[in-house]
């Protein structure tokens, strides 16, 4: 033995899994999602992803060199961060968006806090939220085949039906990594390999579904739940973001608490909040609770558990029914009953709710159709709306959708006019909805907003008489917006100053309602 023998404290064997190995498996699990995203979105998305990953790795490398730290960039964790960030962005963002996102994620959130294992929130999510705040319109504008579209989630929030099949495959628009089926496949592989823990990913999804089912307004309708699960990064969040080792609790029980917390919070944000990206924030808030959970939830070693102490004392093993913790059973039963009751109540009261909503809306109908005493759903209109199946109406009204068509009746029961409710997705801040009152001859009797979130002092001025009364008592084929004012013809509408986008959206919606009335009710009715 010419060489010195190595000395060390045992054990003298090590598993072949290393940090870099786990990170590489995560990258591989994300590849199907990325590839589908690339195919749907084209070459630019590949470039964008590369920018995100290379920036992430280079940032860590440079930081290591400057701070004379060991080469931590080799552990592949920066690759995971870069890839996750790219997958959570729209495929068409300018090159500096993934660059800045990765830079922030790695430098500020990871390196400044001490590197791998020390960051307190998920770097990729933090990067994404940083971009959301800094470049809100860039990061939330989605294009499919070069055309701006709403994400399915925006439609879902507006009460539309969405194409769940497309969302599953990843062709419905949204972020680069939006193929639910690929994300789920990757996530389940990681779960099967015990790299991510079911205590987190499944409890996130269950908690989320519970809230959506209870408060989403449509009960536990599977199609509705699937649509919610498929949108807004819930699957990516549950499998790839919330499960991040560093920012999730270590104990399995802690993970369960943490997962349920994120799921419930995400569900509440989705149901009662206004941001479509609320799930990212739910996970980050969950991250913030991790140190607390880890401090207080520490499992007792097997030998010190109550049941085991009884066995050590020689007491007989209890029967199965005594072993099931009663609180768990009670909570499960209560949840089950509440869920069934709520969905049952929903089904039973569905018609009543619709009537009530109709009555509520009658006020706005009255505003645009003062001659009418009562209102009823227009049969021809309803048929036409059902035939549209939630699609955008026509080709020349932007993204306007017809919600409902109502006939206004006078005290004698004769039709005096019609109210068409139209939603436009082209508003400056998402959607706006208007009711358009139309006399039988096609004259506009007035418009009223039932939904308007535009910028105060700008787009919000659309709701002022100065703007909306321009449509009143005019009988034209279609209105058009004059950006700089000076209208003379009846079809010309002066834009609200500084709010051309909003003005155009309103006008398109009015035109859509008018066209719908002429072709589907007047034409169809006669």
């Amino acid at each position, binding site marked *: 033995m010419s060489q010195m023998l190595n000395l060390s404290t045992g054990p003298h064997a090590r598993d072949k899994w290393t940090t870099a190995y*786990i990170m590489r498996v995560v990258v591989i699990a994300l590849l199907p999602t990325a590839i589908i995203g690339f195919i749907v979105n084209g070459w630019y998305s590949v470039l964008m992803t590369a920018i995100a990953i290379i920036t992430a790795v280079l940032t860590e490398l440079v930081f290591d060199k400057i701070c004379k730290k060991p080469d931590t960039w080799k552990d592949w964790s920066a690759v995971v961060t870069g890839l996750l960030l790219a997958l959570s962005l729209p495929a068409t963002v300018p090159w500096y968006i993934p660059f800045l996102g990765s830079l922030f994620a790695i430098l500020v959130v990871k390196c400044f806090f001490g590197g791998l294992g020390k960051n307190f929130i998920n770097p990729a999510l933090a990067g994404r939220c940083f971009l959301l705040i800094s470049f809100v319109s860039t990061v939330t504008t989605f294009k499919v085949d070069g055309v701006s579209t709403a994400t399915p989630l925006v439609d879902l929030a507006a009460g539309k039906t969405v194409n769940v099949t497309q969302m599953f495959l990843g062709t419905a628009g949204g972020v680069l990594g939006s193929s639910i089926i690929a994300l789920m496949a990757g996530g389940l592989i990681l779960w099967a390999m015990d790299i991510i823990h079911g205590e987190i990913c499944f409890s996130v999804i269950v908690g989320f579904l519970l809230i959506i089912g209870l408060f989403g307004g449509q009960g536990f309708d599977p199609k509705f739940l699937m649509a919610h699960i498929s949108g807004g990064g819930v699957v990516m969040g549950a499998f790839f973001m919330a499960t991040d080792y560093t920012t999730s609790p270590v104990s399995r029980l802690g993970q369960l608490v943490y997962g349920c917390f994120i799921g419930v919070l995400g569900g509440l944000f989705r149901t009662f909040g206004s941001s479509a990206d609320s799930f990212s924030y739910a996970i980050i808030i969950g991250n913030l609770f991790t140190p607390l959970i880890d401090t207080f939830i520490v499992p007792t*070693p097997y030998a010190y558990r109550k049941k085991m102490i009884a066995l050590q004392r020689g007491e007989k093993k209890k029967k199965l029914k005594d072993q099931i913790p009663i609180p768990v059973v009670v909570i499960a039963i209560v949840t089950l009953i509440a869920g069934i009751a709520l969905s049952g109540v929903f089904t039973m009261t569905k018609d009543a709710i619709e009537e009530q909503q109709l009555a509520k809306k009658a006020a706005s109908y009255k505003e645009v159709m003062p001659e009418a005493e009562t209102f009823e759903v227009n049969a021809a209109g309803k048929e036409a709306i059902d035939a549209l199946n939630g699609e955008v109406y026509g080709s020349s009204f932007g993204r306007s959708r017809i919600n409902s068509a109502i006939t206004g009746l006078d005290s004698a029961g004769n039709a005096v006019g019609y109210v068409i409710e139209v939603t436009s997705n082209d508003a400056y801040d998402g959607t706006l909805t208007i009711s358009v009152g139309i006399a039988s001859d096609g004259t506009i009797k007035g418009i009223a907003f039932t939904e308007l979130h535009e910028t105060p002092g700008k787009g919000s001025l659309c709701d002022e008489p100065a703007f909306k009364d321009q449509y009143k008592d005019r009988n034209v084929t279609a209105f058009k917006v004059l950006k700089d004012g000076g209208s003379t013809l009846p079809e010309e509408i002066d834009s609200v100053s500084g709010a051309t986008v909003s003005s155009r959206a309103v006008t398109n919606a009015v035109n859509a309602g008018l066209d719908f009335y002429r072709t589907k009710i007047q034409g169809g009715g006669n």
Partner: protein
Amino acid sequence: MAKETFRGGIHPNEHKEYSRGVALKVYETKGDVILPLSQNIGRPAKPVVKRNDPVLVGQVIGEADGFVSANIIASVSGKVKAVEKRRTLNGSLQECIVIENDGAFTPLKDYSVREDISWITNEEILARIKNAGIVGLGGAGFPTHVKLAPKDPLAVKYVIVNGAECEPYLTCDDQLMRAMGDEIVEGLKLILKLFPNAEGVIAIEKNKPEAIASMERAAEGNTKIRVQPLKTKYPQGGEKSLIRVIAGIDTPRAMLPADVGCIVINVGTVYACQRAIVYNEPLYRRAMTVTGDAVKEPGNFIVRTGTLFSEVLEAAGGVKEGVEARKALAGGPMMGISMPSLDVPIIKLNNGLTLLSVDPVEKADAAMTACLHCGRCTTVCPIGLMPQMMADAFIAQDLDRYEKKLYGLECVECGSCTYICPAKRPLMQTFKQAKAEIAAVKAAKAAAGGAK
């Protein structure tokens, strides 16, 4: 039907292929033997021979000093060369008796003749075990005559014979069970005489089908003895793991196996007890495996205690040509102790020599990263501890949280957490240090309290 395994645990590469098929071979020592006076838990033996005294094989040369102590037996005949401090396997100097080997192996009495033991009493069984200097041969080295004399022998429900051999590389217990099935069952039956209410359970991992078959055949017809196959998983052969599997009880650190009605005894120890009771032969040799990728002809040997590791390595063909040994382990890679040199004696506790050309620790240290908080260590801990949190608490020097909230003293040092850690953190090593520090703090407090 008992369960086949415990919670947690790991399945390292077994590497038993090197030596699993090689039958036990008796190796007769050529050189001198060095017998440390401390080969057990408890107090070292007192030497009862001096320089130039002639000794015979089987002669007591060190006497048990107190209750928890064990006799030291001459393993060769010849004369005492010295009673002095010599280098032992962990590199420390310890008091040893060195015997100049005359090569004749003249025994004190003829150990090949069965004695009539039909009359034997429980006291005599324990006395013979004590005189034979038998300690736990699995590696713990607890004096067996103490282990077999619990406060209430009637409360013992299981005598668990540990043939799990969950340690990677090692195969000597496997070969012993294949060759000595009848002898082991006879030894177990004699031990069961001490515990009238107990059942004998021979627990063997399923990766040793030949040993299971051999023991089942030997145990056939015995209503009080059964063979329990176990899932192949480390640390299946740990005392707490076996009690968990056979009796269904997890025991805390403060509890002895006997407190929950169990006696756990290594299969080699049972064989030694059979030799001691039936042949009145003391413990001067044991089975061990010489293995590893750096060994030319790995195999299983019956060797005399006090033989140098280097001599047994030569018996196994020496170091393989073209290979350089990087690490030598007394035992296997999980529980074994790394040795600076092979010119140290084999003691009662050494079940193997593993010689490796690649040091996995060296490789792992190069791949070390910060802790990811992945929780793999918590998944494998057989005790249900939170190694990652314990390491954090120790690094933060929060010894109170380490001990009270995290039950850090319960660690059995199986090393599963260190093995599994993808960040290659030295977890178990940290816990050894933490336990030592807590013990030191407590000792200092006790001393201060005593001085007042």
